[in-house]
């Protein structure tokens, strides 16, 4: 049994213990967005030949996978600052790479679990989308990017409030501007240039293209994979910073 699986299994065990609470918390915001924007505001609206609900669901998949993958940072910080379990892990013969991989896998799992809920809601709403390999690949890449970023930042922050600050300044703006609710190419050109640098813009683009059966935007896949690799490396590097 490797230490990486120990870390991963601990997160899953906690997720299992809080299953219903977690399920409720993961489904509240996508459900609200679906009802408010999909069924309310977006009724009768079409985007690029698709109903707004069809357009919205892949965006929500990208957004929710980002939020849930990033939420692993909160779990790490609870373990670090509140329960001091991080100290127990640090005192064990666990290599940094095992720790980071275990936590990143846990973040990806959380993201996939939340996406399964959205897909279920989409199916129940009668929205037809293609859940092909490109769809899952883009989804896993997006989760990898944000879980790696979360683990890295969790090593740098000094308190829970620092963590909340990061979420408010990076994740929330990205959720609204990264192509979840509207097509980025309808924005003014200067804004498009800025939004190009958001990983969520590329995740929304790739997931949406796969869901509509359009040709995959390989540049977006490549960008997500590169960013994920950089964040993973930084997370690995920053684990040592958490030592005194």
């Amino acid at each position, binding site marked *: 049994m490797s*230490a990486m699986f120990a870390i991963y299994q601990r997160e899953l065990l906690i997720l299992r*213990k809080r299953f219903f609470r977690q399920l409720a918390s993961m489904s509240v915001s996508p459900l609200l967005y679906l009802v408010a924007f999909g069924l309310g505001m977006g009724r009768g609206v079409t985007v690029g030949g698709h109903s707004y609900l069809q357009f919205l669901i892949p965006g929500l998949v990208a957004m929710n996978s980002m939020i849930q993958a990033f939420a692993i940072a909160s779990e790490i910080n609870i373990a670090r600052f509140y329960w001091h379990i991080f*100290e127990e892990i640090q005192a064990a013969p666990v*290599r940094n790479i095992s720790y980071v991989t275990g936590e990143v896998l846990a973040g990806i799992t959380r993201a996939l679990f939340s996406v399964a809920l959205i897909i279920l809601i989409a199916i129940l709403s009668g929205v037809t989308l293609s859940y092909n390999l490109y769809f899952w690949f883009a989804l896993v890449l997006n989760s990898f990017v944000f879980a790696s970023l979360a683990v890295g930042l969790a090593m740098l922050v000094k308190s829970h409030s620092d963590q909340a600050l990061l979420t408010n300044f990076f994740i929330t703006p990205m959720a609204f501007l990264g192509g979840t609710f509207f097509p980025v190419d309808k924005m003014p050109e200067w804004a498009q240039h800025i939004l190009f640098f958001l990983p969520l813009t590329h995740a929304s683009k790739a997931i949406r293209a796969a869901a509509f059966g359009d040709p995959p935007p390989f540049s977006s896949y490549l960008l997500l994979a590169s960013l994920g690799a950089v964040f993973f490396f930084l997370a690995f590097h920053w684990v040592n910073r958490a030592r005194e």
Partner: protein
Amino acid sequence: MIRFEKLCKRYKQLEALKGVSLSVNEGELFAYLGPNGSGKTTTIKILTCLAVPTAGDAWLNGFHTEKESIQAKRQCGLVPQNVNLDNELTVRENLDFHGKLFRMPRRERTKRIFELLEYIEIEDRMNSPVKSLSGGLRRRVMIARALMHWPKILFLDEPTVGLDPAIRRRIWSLIKKIQQGGTTIFLTTHYIEEAEFLADRVAFLDEGTIVALDTPQHLIEAMGAWALDRVCDGDMETFYFRDREEAQKHIAEHKAGFSLRRVNLEDVFISLTGKKVMT
């Protein structure tokens, strides 16, 4: 078994350790005594690879704590000062997680968990969530967890802090039992009676420096066996004597309100530093 040389640790403006050196023998129960903020926990953090020394070296069973940290960590178990059990998990799950971190196979983990919970006499609480346990039980679970992977060295950082006297004595018996099993124990405490009762040798730490190192008996004998205390102008005055008769003679001569007692390690520490250990 434990060796460190010229350990220094600086936190910005604060110099927590100022070049301390020490070695602890195999099977020994060593107490590291000092007031809060003297550098006890910092030393343990460095020895267990939780902190990096600013200078100096440390070895656990021959493994360098920086250069061979993975092997060094395998040699030791740590019971930190703060309770760091996973509150969301049960007693068994906490121990099992620790076993997994040390790559113990499933069958071995299961067997060891039963063994240890029986050893610390809480086998009936195996499936209880940690959050339902009392402070004393949590501390015992932490000790069991630290022993899960059969460490050669056990670090106990203030293992009885905040516990009531009856529970504290129970933990002492457990610590003695662990030592009798052959484990080397490095204990930090600011409870004088804990060090006197448990330790084979003690080191006094004050402001990041070791100010005395010997067996409790030798340190006490050097002061004298008996002490007389009296309050004079609002201050406590203490006089030390080789034997009881000498002390009683002093009382008879001075006729002041003295109280007679045995010398303890607190007296040794005060005479060396002018401070109390329990601050």
